[in-house]
């Protein structure tokens, strides 16, 4: 019994996903649980998933990036402008846009790390700035009529599996490899766990923290490319509101708000929980505003859980010490 509890504790995120899926299956039967709907959920989750993995790097090392939504918007409009009004071939347009996005990630990280402002405040400022830039680049209006080839990242399938899902999988595998197997990856955990101890152990903590934003920027770039394909246009508001959703997914996935703890696979499960929930609620005709409330409640629940767990472990730790 105790063993079962331990397993449940260890895999609580996965358990939540299963329970959720079971619930929707009971209520809606095959309308929810059929291969097409599941693939739809996966496809809809892939952009958020890639962004969340980037966010995870920031949070592991003790930061936060609330500019991810604006970064995605920026990529869709710069790509679109490059392709349409500047007639640059779409692969080049995407490459340059991803580069711009990666750079904006670096800038965010650089400012936050060097000035030691709160990551939340610094990235919030960047969110507003980059969103403004996105609107200026496209003149405030969506850009349509993109070249045919450019939408493949958002809409193509390989077999039955949508390409974005495969990209998410690849990003997850590579990220997990970096974080678990390389010393570079370990440094994110170590820096997030105790930045001063890490610095005094000879780790270049500023570089690691800045790198986490660079990675986040790069992954937002990729997410932006997929987004461009999915909406077949450059949308200055494409990523609007996704910052919070990302944060929710990452915290749901067990990444500590204090840094230093978290696994890629769990974050992906966190993303799927949100995907299933949104899909299920939509099938059940729950209106958009109620969905907002639910999403907010989930976020609140996740952060409270994270915080309460810490308080509890501190308390028991103190008891042990005394």
């Amino acid at each position, binding site marked *: 019994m105790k063993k079962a509890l331990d397993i449940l504790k260890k895999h609580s995120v996965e358990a939540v996903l299963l329970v959720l899926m079971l619930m929707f299956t009971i209520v809606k039967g095959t309308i929810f649980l059929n291969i097409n709907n599941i693939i739809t959920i996966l496809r809809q989750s892939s952009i958020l998933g890639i962004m969340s993995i980037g966010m995870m790097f920031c949070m592991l090392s003790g930061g936060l990036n609330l500019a991810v939504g604006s970064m995605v918007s920026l990529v869709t409009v710069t790509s679109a402008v490059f392709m349409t009004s500047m007639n640059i071939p779409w692969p080049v347009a995407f490459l340059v846009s991803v580069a711009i996005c990666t750079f904006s990630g670096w800038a965010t990280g650089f400012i936050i790390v060097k000035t030691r402002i709160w990551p939340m405040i610094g990235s919030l400022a960047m969110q507003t700035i980059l969103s403004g830039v996105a609107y200026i680049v496209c003149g405030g209006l969506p850009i349509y009529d993109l070249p045919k080839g450019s939408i493949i990242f958002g809409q193509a399938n390989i077999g039955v599996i949508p390409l974005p899902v495969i990209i998410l999988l690849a990003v997850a595998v590579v990220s997990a490899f970096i974080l678990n197997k*390389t010393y570079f990856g370990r440094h994110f955990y170590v820096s997030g766990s105790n930045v001063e*101890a890490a*610095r*005094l*152990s000879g780790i270049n903590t500023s570089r690691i923290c800045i790198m986490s934003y660079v990675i986040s920027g790069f992954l937002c770039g990729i997410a932006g490319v997929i987004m461009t394909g999915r909406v077949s246009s450059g949308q200055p508001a494409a990523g609007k509101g996704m910052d919070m959703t990302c944060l929710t997914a990452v915290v749901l996935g067990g990444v500590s708000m204090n840094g*230093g703890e978290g696994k890629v696979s769990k974050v992906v499960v966190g993303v799927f929980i949100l995907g299933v929930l949104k899909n299920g609620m939509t099938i059940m005709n729950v209106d958009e505003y109620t969905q907002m409330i639910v999403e907010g409640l989930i976020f609140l629940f996740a952060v409270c859980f994270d915080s309460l767990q810490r308080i509890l472990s501190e308390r028991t730790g103190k008891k042990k010490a005394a």
Partner: protein
Amino acid sequence: MSNILEVKNITKIYPGVVALNRVSMDVREGEVHALIGENGAGKSTLIKVITGAIEPNDGEIVYGGKSYSKMSPELSRQLGIEAIYQEFNLAPAVSVAENIYIGSKVNDGAVIDYKKLYSEAAKVLDNFTVEISPKSLVKDLTVAYMQLVEIAKAIARNARLIIMDEPTAPLTEDEVGNLFEIIKELKKQGVSVIYISHRLDELFAVSDRVTVMRDGEVIVTKDTKDFNKEQLIYHMVGRGLNETFPERNVTYGEPVLEVKELCGNGVAPVSFTLRKGEVLGLAGLVGAGRTELVRLIFGADPKDGGKIFIEGKETAINKPQDAVRSGIGLVSEDRKAQGVFLRMSIKTNITVTILEKLAKWGVINRRAENDCAVEYREALNIKTPSLEQLAGNLSGGNQQKVALAKWLASKSKVLILDEPTRGIDVGAKQEIYQLINRLAEEGLGIIVISSEMEEILGITDRLLILSEGRLSGTLMKEEYSQTTVLKYASGEQ
């Protein structure tokens, strides 16, 4: 004169330590009563008992003729006991007047009557010979003036007993004179002062009586005029070395670390050489600049000037990374905040400094990492069932060994240990001493900082003594005596 305060047979026991052992002391009305003793003698604990910050296990506190078994912060304040600590309790962005009356009101109603507030504050400040405007902001004041605001705050609350903890530590000489004037003024008004200081000269200038504490007990209380300095030091030290320190074969090699005119971070230019196989001690009072000095060497804080040579080669150390690369390891005094990663596994903690070398193409060799962790777990006898255990679950002594292990793993040539035995039990202490000996015999150069006098005299070969950020003396092992160390530490050349 009658007594305003009497503490009788106060005992305070912490797990494993008797912090106060049947301590009795009295303070007369209008008296300046100095309280002295080495670090850890129990002065702070006693003060905390008097102000009600901690509850004693036994004993009685008599204040103004009434007996209490314990104080509370609210009660002691009501009774007119105020303490001025080294860290001020002031709101920096707020005016002097508002700070003086913080937590109390000068007028009724919800709106502050600033006119009254300023005039009341001015009245309090009139006690002092110096001019402070009640309207100026605290953050614009010098440290000395901030201290005056603290004293004014105590006066405004009608304090009858003011406790001053190392009040002259942040002051210049002129400011010290000024403070003494104020203390005399307080005396005239019948206010009593408990005055804690490490600077023995000051006691003769300002105090009426002196109480010396050592190892949680009151050793002696006498009129200041009946003491001379040597006697005070004798009472403070008053014992031989009673802990055993393991013997070591001392053989010195080449200089491994040379520091030339290194300064910054409140440390005046310091030069010294550390040889292979040598254990060098840094002694001095808390705040003398010992930790600051080693942090400069390690590149943890920016330096203003000076050079560092490692094995004879000048080495630029501007950040901890440089220090680690050139073979310096620092076990910092604040183990939990800076030494170990409490939320990470023991294995991660041990290998953090050499992870890069345990990796090929950036990929960590799991087996090599594990072997390394196992090697140092055994070498240091870290008691844990598993290397995957979180470091935070270990005892203090084992945590310290983990913090040390990472520097052994990285093959440091110079090891700096800042308070290596703070907060760890006797058995673990002995293990650390033996380890220091073993490492020195293996040819490491070791710098040890310790506030425990016996310890630093017992384990080191040579001692640098710092006082107020400057090197005030160097002692070779044969010259060691607690009296001399204390003399240098209190600032005498």
